[in-house]
């Protein structure tokens, strides 16, 4: 599942990214690397996504979020999900 399409509140594991290396490296450095768990917190204007990972709250634009491929860990109904 692309991170840009993941439902709010979903806990996901990052599988791989189809972004260019420079960008992928920076995401890894910020904790968004293959194998790590992320939680989708918000959708922002123009399809941006806010995720929590490795303690950081990261805002990604739509294209970047679409380049991160994930697999659901479990679908937990956090309050954020109900608000959606």
């Amino acid at each position: 599942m692309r991170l840009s399409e993941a439902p709010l509140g979903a806990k996901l594991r990052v599988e791989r990214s189809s972004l260019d290396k420079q960008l992928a490296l920076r995401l890894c450095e910020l904790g968004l690397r293959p194998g790590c768990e992320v939680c989708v917190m918000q959708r922002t204007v123009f399809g941006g996504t806010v995720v929590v990972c490795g303690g950081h709250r990261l805002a990604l634009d739509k294209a970047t979020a679409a380049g991160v491929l994930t697999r659901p860990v479990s679908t937990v109904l956090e309050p954020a999900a109900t608000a959606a």
Partner: protein
Amino acid sequence: MTSLSTETGTAAGTGPQRVMLVGNPNVGKSTLFNLLTGARQKTMNAPRTTVAFESGRWRLRSTDPAAPATVRLIDLPGTYSLLAQSPDEQVTAEAVSPAAIPATSSSGSSASLGATGRAKNQGHKHSSATACPHCGAKSAAAKDGHLVGAGRAESGRETDGLSGPDLAIAMLDANAPASSLYLIGQLALLGVPLIVAVTMADVARSRGVLVDTAQLRDVLGVPVVEVDPRRGKGGERLAETVAAVLAGKISPRVKLPLEAEICGLDDKPDLDLASDPLFDWVAETIAAASLDRPPTPAGSDKVDRWLLKWWIGTPVFLAILWLVFEATTVLAGPLQEAFEGFVVNVMGGWVQAGLNLIGWDGGWFESLLQDGLLAGVGIVAGFVPLMAIIFLAIALLEDSGYMARAALVSDRLMRLIGLDGRAVLPLVIGFGCNIPAVAATKTLPDARQRLMTGLMAPYASCTARLVIFLFIASVFFPEHAGSVVFGMYLISAGLIVLVGLVLHKTAFRSVGDQPLILVLPPYQVPRLMPLFRSVVLRCRNFVLRAGQVIVVLSIVVWGLLSIPVTAGYTVGDEIPAQDSLLGAVAEGIAPVFAPAGFDDWHVTASLMTGFVAKEAAVGTMATSFGMEEPEDPTQVGDLSSKVRAALDASSGGHGNAAAWAYMLFCLGYAPCMATVAEQRRVFGLKPTAAALGLSLAISWLLAVVVFQLGALL
């Protein structure tokens, strides 16, 4: 002392040992720096960049005779990685590279040292910009050593902070240990001696994450100290630890059971990010130090759920912009007058009384002191409350964590001209006053974006320029003065966008093409003491660095106004404008404006004093016609007919077209000297001079085109 600090010690000469603060952005590095150094600090630019870093003296107060009494503490730009992707990160990456390691190979063809399992990468190349923390340690250091050495020869002590630390204090954000540990791992691979300072532990604790410093120390093998600079805590412990390390009592070498290679990407298309050993080390360390916690929503997310919705976030952002703008105009206005009035009137009175005592009053010397020196000091003093308000507003927005959200909300709009969403703030402030607008570029995380915004901001029509527009519009277009002034504001906004587009298409082509990856720091209630401390320090910096230039320029202008060019006057007399050096120069350069229709020396003289302060332009024009400046710029009286006659004559009967040309030229030709001084403080001399030349050219062209077209109508 460690072997490395001995090595770098030779690079440092006999100066104090260098301790560098290294860490991710927004972890409280600067707050810690201000706490540790107090007022004993100064801002410098890294060699050949517009990236500033702070350097200060830190008294360790150690009882150990082997420990130094003071060290030089350097606050480097925040970064997530030593594989730099921006000029600011590059400065940090170069600064921590041990420079004294002798060059053994050129940077283009270094062989990697311990490339376990990665033999195929031997002989890879690095991009010129990235420091390679492992195999590149030699090559990058050799290169950096060369760069820094060259820089030092050129500009003396300005650069001597950037050639490898004797000790690094690596900040570990308790909220986001992974990216902090990654940077620590990179530093360790480079061989940088370091200790760890844990920050944000209070925020983490409120989320149920406890950082056990003893456990972390055992895992990393270097001292780990918890600090809380926002509450002024942890400074003594940190000083003790640094003293002990520098005295050789404790090892600053991170236990890194890793023969890894983490190099730049340009030459490694097959790089497998999932299996990079440094990332694995980070994950293992987090597990070993029990820092691992699943991602959970926090209070910040509840706030974000509302603030990041566009229909709430946008009005909130606009309201905050409006508040900041109001603060720089309505709130700062009276304070500005009071501060300037105090210097010019009260201190001027003291100077007069003092000169009277020694019998030196009334001559050129008093004129120089009063109208040159004190007038300049008055201008600087007047700007202090304004700058304090802006610095406070920025510190509040940054400390609270809101600034990153503002960037997110306005990102799309600003991206059109290649800028970060945060650039909106300086540009809006510019419509109040250009000087704090230039200072406010500090909030942008990338040096190129700061420079670009700082070059665009002076095209914002500040309130001082409004006086000129009101006056000219009332003289030439009394029926439509309001519309004309409004039109000038529209043109100003259009000019900002145009300059932004041109810069984005030319000198700043690569800026803003990066996709948006924004770290949203947790919301925090700003603490008063650190805020107050940072505002005072920044104001002091403004007074010392920009203030000097303003005072010098003020004295130069005094000279222009006070030195007579015709017989019968001496310096210090009340000289009619046309008999002063100013009048002579104005007459000399007036023909330049013939194609724009205002080659009249009265008008040119007003442009010259308009450089000192835009509000002075109308006064100069009035006195050059031998009249008093009107109290209200819309009540033009007799002056109207004189100005109109002058422009009608110079433009061959197209006075209205010349008036438009003059207003347009006033909008863009140069910001006031205080803004130029502030630009020089923030960006350095070269970009400032280039910007000045460019704005003169743009404005002249614009004025000529508008006049020539207008004259056809």
